[in-house]
Protein backbone atom coordinates (compact mmCIF):
# COMPACT_ATOMS: atom_id res chain seq x y z
CA UNK A 1 0.00 0.00 0.00
CA UNK A 2 1.22 3.49 -0.77
CA UNK A 3 1.33 6.16 1.91
CA UNK A 4 -1.72 7.77 0.31
CA UNK A 5 -3.66 4.53 0.55
CA UNK A 6 -2.61 3.95 4.15
CA UNK A 7 -3.63 7.47 5.10
CA UNK A 8 -6.95 6.95 3.34
CA UNK A 9 -7.47 3.66 5.22
CA UNK A 10 -6.68 5.39 8.51
CA UNK A 11 -9.08 8.22 7.83
CA UNK A 12 -11.86 5.83 6.89
CA UNK A 13 -11.51 3.81 10.08
CA UNK A 14 -14.01 4.17 12.85
CA UNK A 15 -17.11 4.36 10.73
CA UNK A 16 -19.46 2.75 13.20
CA UNK A 17 -23.09 1.85 12.54
CA UNK A 18 -25.05 4.66 10.90
CA UNK A 19 -27.84 4.23 13.43
CA UNK A 20 -27.35 4.13 17.17
CA UNK A 21 -30.77 3.91 18.80
CA UNK A 22 -29.34 4.20 22.31
CA UNK A 23 -27.56 7.46 21.56
CA UNK A 24 -30.53 8.89 19.67
CA UNK A 25 -32.91 7.87 22.48
CA UNK A 26 -30.68 9.56 25.05
CA UNK A 27 -30.63 12.77 23.03
CA UNK A 28 -34.41 12.75 22.62
CA UNK A 29 -34.86 12.03 26.33
CA UNK A 30 -32.83 15.12 27.12
CA UNK A 31 -34.80 17.12 24.57
CA UNK A 32 -38.08 15.98 26.12
CA UNK A 33 -36.82 16.83 29.60
CA UNK A 34 -35.80 20.27 28.44
CA UNK A 35 -39.23 20.81 26.89
CA UNK A 36 -40.94 19.68 30.09
CA UNK A 37 -38.85 22.12 32.14
CA UNK A 38 -39.69 24.92 29.73
CA UNK A 39 -43.40 24.11 29.96
CA UNK A 40 -43.27 23.95 33.75
CA UNK A 41 -41.48 27.29 33.86
CA UNK A 42 -44.06 28.82 31.53
CA UNK A 43 -46.89 27.39 33.63
CA UNK A 44 -45.30 28.77 36.80
CA UNK A 45 -45.02 32.22 35.26
CA UNK A 46 -48.64 32.03 34.09
CA UNK A 47 -49.84 30.87 37.51
CA UNK A 48 -47.90 33.63 39.23
CA UNK A 49 -49.32 36.22 36.88
CA UNK A 50 -52.84 34.89 37.49
CA UNK A 51 -52.32 34.97 41.25
CA UNK A 52 -51.06 38.53 41.14
CA UNK A 53 -53.99 39.49 38.91
CA UNK A 54 -56.49 37.92 41.27
CA UNK A 55 -54.84 39.60 44.25
CA UNK A 56 -55.01 42.97 42.51
CA UNK A 57 -58.65 42.43 41.62
CA UNK A 58 -59.60 41.02 45.01
CA UNK A 59 -61.55 44.08 46.23
CA UNK A 60 -63.67 44.15 43.07
CA UNK A 61 -64.15 40.39 43.04
CA UNK A 62 -65.14 40.38 46.69
CA UNK A 63 -67.75 43.03 46.06
CA UNK A 64 -69.25 40.95 43.25
CA UNK A 65 -68.88 37.48 44.69
CA UNK A 66 -69.95 38.00 48.29
CA UNK A 67 -73.61 38.78 47.51
CA UNK A 68 -73.66 35.89 45.04
CA UNK A 69 -72.13 33.55 47.61
CA UNK A 70 -74.84 34.38 50.16
CA UNK A 71 -77.50 33.79 47.54
CA UNK A 72 -76.06 30.55 46.17
CA UNK A 73 -74.79 28.94 49.36
CA UNK A 74 -77.93 26.82 50.07
CA UNK A 75 -77.90 25.47 46.51
CA UNK A 76 -74.17 24.76 46.56
CA UNK A 77 -74.54 23.10 49.95
CA UNK A 78 -77.24 20.76 48.67
CA UNK A 79 -75.26 19.91 45.58
CA UNK A 80 -72.18 19.15 47.66
CA UNK A 81 -74.14 16.91 50.00
CA UNK A 82 -75.68 15.03 47.08
CA UNK A 83 -72.30 14.56 45.42
CA UNK A 84 -70.81 13.29 48.69
CA UNK A 85 -73.62 10.75 49.14
CA UNK A 86 -73.24 9.51 45.57
CA UNK A 87 -69.48 9.16 45.88
CA UNK A 88 -69.62 7.40 49.22
CA UNK A 89 -72.34 5.04 48.11
CA UNK A 90 -70.26 4.00 45.10
CA UNK A 91 -67.10 3.41 47.10
CA UNK A 92 -66.25 -0.32 46.94
CA UNK A 93 -65.24 -0.39 50.60
CA UNK A 94 -68.64 0.97 51.63
CA UNK A 95 -70.41 -1.52 49.37
CA UNK A 96 -68.49 -4.36 51.01
CA UNK A 97 -69.54 -3.13 54.45
CA UNK A 98 -73.19 -3.13 53.39
CA UNK A 99 -72.90 -6.70 52.20
Amino acid at each position, binding site marked *: *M*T*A*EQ*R*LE*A*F*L*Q*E*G*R*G*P*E*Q*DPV*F*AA*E*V*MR*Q*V*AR*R*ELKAQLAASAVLATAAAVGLWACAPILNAVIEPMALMLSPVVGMLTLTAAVVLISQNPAWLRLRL
Partner: protein
Amino acid sequence: MEAPLVRAARAGSQAAFGRLVERHQQGLRRFLRRAAGAEADDVAQEAFVTAWANLNRLRDDEGFRPWLYGIAWRRALTLNRSAARSARRDHDWTQERDGKGAGLAAEDRMALEAAMATLAPDQRAAVTLCLADGWSHGEAADALGLPLGTIKSHVARGRDKLLSVLGDKP
Protein backbone atom coordinates in the same frame (compact mmCIF):
# COMPACT_ATOMS: atom_id res chain seq x y z
CA MET B 1 -32.97 18.32 1.60
CA GLU B 2 -33.00 18.87 5.33
CA ALA B 3 -34.89 22.12 5.32
CA PRO B 4 -38.34 20.51 5.81
CA LEU B 5 -37.09 18.54 8.79
CA VAL B 6 -35.46 21.63 10.25
CA ARG B 7 -38.62 23.68 9.78
CA ALA B 8 -40.76 20.96 11.36
CA ALA B 9 -38.37 20.66 14.30
CA ARG B 10 -38.36 24.43 14.74
CA ALA B 11 -42.16 24.28 14.87
CA GLY B 12 -41.86 21.86 17.78
CA SER B 13 -41.78 18.42 16.17
CA GLN B 14 -39.55 16.19 18.26
CA ALA B 15 -40.03 13.42 15.71
CA ALA B 16 -38.50 15.59 13.01
CA PHE B 17 -35.62 16.50 15.27
CA GLY B 18 -35.16 12.80 16.05
CA ARG B 19 -34.69 12.20 12.33
CA LEU B 20 -32.01 14.87 12.26
CA VAL B 21 -30.32 13.25 15.25
CA GLU B 22 -30.35 9.86 13.56
CA ARG B 23 -28.96 11.37 10.39
CA HIS B 24 -26.04 13.21 11.96
CA GLN B 25 -25.16 11.41 15.16
CA GLN B 26 -22.66 9.01 13.68
CA GLY B 27 -20.73 11.59 11.71
CA LEU B 28 -20.70 14.11 14.53
CA ARG B 29 -19.49 11.61 17.11
CA ARG B 30 -16.80 10.35 14.78
CA PHE B 31 -15.65 13.90 14.08
CA LEU B 32 -15.51 14.71 17.78
CA ARG B 33 -13.63 11.55 18.63
CA ARG B 34 -11.00 12.27 16.04
CA ALA B 35 -10.76 16.01 16.47
CA ALA B 36 -11.56 16.55 20.12
CA GLY B 37 -10.67 13.27 21.81
CA ALA B 38 -12.46 11.97 24.87
CA GLU B 39 -16.00 12.79 25.98
CA ALA B 40 -17.08 12.99 22.39
CA ASP B 41 -20.47 11.40 23.01
CA ASP B 42 -21.33 13.75 25.86
CA VAL B 43 -20.32 16.75 23.79
CA ALA B 44 -22.36 15.43 20.86
CA GLN B 45 -25.43 15.00 23.06
CA GLU B 46 -25.09 18.48 24.46
CA ALA B 47 -24.64 19.86 20.97
CA PHE B 48 -27.86 18.23 19.81
CA VAL B 49 -29.81 19.54 22.79
CA THR B 50 -28.34 23.01 22.30
CA ALA B 51 -29.24 22.84 18.62
CA TRP B 52 -32.82 21.93 19.52
CA ALA B 53 -33.07 24.88 21.87
CA ASN B 54 -31.58 27.31 19.37
CA LEU B 55 -33.11 26.20 16.09
CA ASN B 56 -34.68 29.61 15.65
CA ARG B 57 -31.17 31.06 15.35
CA LEU B 58 -30.29 28.91 12.34
CA ARG B 59 -30.48 31.26 9.37
CA ASP B 60 -30.07 28.75 6.53
CA ASP B 61 -32.21 25.66 7.02
CA GLU B 62 -30.02 23.71 4.59
CA GLY B 63 -26.98 24.58 6.64
CA PHE B 64 -27.97 22.49 9.63
CA ARG B 65 -24.94 20.21 9.47
CA PRO B 66 -22.15 22.83 9.62
CA TRP B 67 -24.17 24.77 12.21
CA LEU B 68 -24.52 21.67 14.39
CA TYR B 69 -20.85 20.75 14.02
CA GLY B 70 -19.92 24.34 14.88
CA ILE B 71 -21.89 24.12 18.13
CA ALA B 72 -20.23 20.81 18.96
CA TRP B 73 -16.77 22.05 18.08
CA ARG B 74 -17.05 25.16 20.23
CA ARG B 75 -18.29 23.04 23.11
CA ALA B 76 -15.48 20.56 22.67
CA LEU B 77 -12.96 23.38 22.82
CA THR B 78 -14.37 24.90 25.97
CA LEU B 79 -15.62 21.92 27.95
CA ASN B 80 -13.23 19.99 30.11
CA ARG B 81 -15.21 17.58 32.17
CA SER B 82 -14.63 14.07 33.41
CA ALA B 83 -17.13 11.46 32.30
CA ALA B 84 -16.43 7.83 32.85
CA ARG B 85 -19.51 6.87 30.86
CA SER B 86 -18.24 8.62 27.78
CA ALA B 87 -14.74 7.31 28.29
CA ARG B 88 -16.11 3.80 28.37
CA ARG B 89 -18.02 4.34 25.13
CA ASP B 90 -14.98 5.89 23.52
CA HIS B 91 -12.94 2.90 24.63
CA ASP B 92 -15.52 0.56 23.10
CA TRP B 93 -15.43 2.56 19.91
CA THR B 94 -11.63 2.43 19.79
CA GLN B 95 -11.67 -1.32 20.24
CA GLU B 96 -14.31 -1.71 17.55
CA ARG B 97 -12.37 0.55 15.20
CA ASP B 98 -9.13 -1.32 15.80
CA GLY B 99 -10.87 -4.58 15.10
CA LYS B 100 -12.21 -3.29 11.81
CA GLY B 101 -9.01 -1.66 10.65
CA ALA B 102 -7.55 -4.82 9.24
CA GLY B 103 -6.12 -3.03 6.21
CA LEU B 104 -3.77 -0.85 8.22
CA ALA B 105 -0.70 -2.04 10.07
CA ALA B 106 -0.66 -1.35 13.79
CA GLU B 107 2.52 0.70 13.58
CA ASP B 108 1.04 2.89 10.85
CA ARG B 109 -2.07 3.49 12.92
CA MET B 110 -0.02 4.38 15.97
CA ALA B 111 2.16 6.73 13.96
CA LEU B 112 -0.85 8.43 12.39
CA GLU B 113 -2.65 8.75 15.71
CA ALA B 114 0.46 10.29 17.23
CA ALA B 115 0.75 12.66 14.28
CA MET B 116 -2.93 13.60 14.57
CA ALA B 117 -2.40 14.35 18.25
CA THR B 118 0.39 16.78 17.40
CA LEU B 119 -1.82 18.81 15.06
CA ALA B 120 -3.36 21.97 16.42
CA PRO B 121 -7.03 21.49 17.34
CA ASP B 122 -8.29 23.61 14.44
CA GLN B 123 -6.01 21.81 12.02
CA ARG B 124 -7.08 18.41 13.32
CA ALA B 125 -10.71 19.39 12.95
CA ALA B 126 -10.17 20.65 9.41
CA VAL B 127 -8.33 17.48 8.42
CA THR B 128 -11.05 15.31 9.93
CA LEU B 129 -13.89 17.10 8.20
CA CYS B 130 -12.28 17.55 4.79
CA LEU B 131 -10.12 14.46 4.42
CA ALA B 132 -11.96 11.87 6.49
CA ASP B 133 -15.56 12.98 6.03
CA GLY B 134 -15.31 14.56 2.59
CA TRP B 135 -16.64 18.00 3.49
CA SER B 136 -15.98 20.93 1.20
CA HIS B 137 -13.57 23.57 2.43
CA GLY B 138 -16.39 26.09 2.54
CA GLU B 139 -18.61 23.89 4.67
CA ALA B 140 -15.74 23.20 7.08
CA ALA B 141 -15.00 26.93 7.26
CA ASP B 142 -18.64 27.56 8.23
CA ALA B 143 -18.61 24.85 10.88
CA LEU B 144 -15.29 25.79 12.47
CA GLY B 145 -15.72 29.53 12.13
CA LEU B 146 -12.41 29.91 10.27
CA PRO B 147 -11.55 31.70 7.02
CA LEU B 148 -11.61 29.58 3.88
CA GLY B 149 -7.90 30.14 3.25
CA THR B 150 -7.05 28.93 6.74
CA ILE B 151 -9.03 25.76 6.19
CA LYS B 152 -7.26 25.06 2.91
CA SER B 153 -3.90 25.65 4.54
CA HIS B 154 -4.77 23.47 7.54
CA VAL B 155 -5.89 20.62 5.31
CA ALA B 156 -2.87 20.75 3.02
CA ARG B 157 -0.33 21.01 5.81
CA GLY B 158 -2.10 18.47 7.96
CA ARG B 159 -2.19 16.00 5.12
CA ASP B 160 1.51 16.51 4.43
CA LYS B 161 2.31 15.98 8.08
CA LEU B 162 0.30 12.78 8.25
CA LEU B 163 1.89 11.45 5.09
CA SER B 164 5.35 12.32 6.34
CA VAL B 165 5.07 9.95 9.30
CA LEU B 166 4.32 7.06 6.96
CA GLY B 167 7.80 7.18 5.59
CA ASP B 168 6.92 8.15 2.01
CA LYS B 169 7.25 11.61 0.59
CA PRO B 170 3.89 13.38 0.36
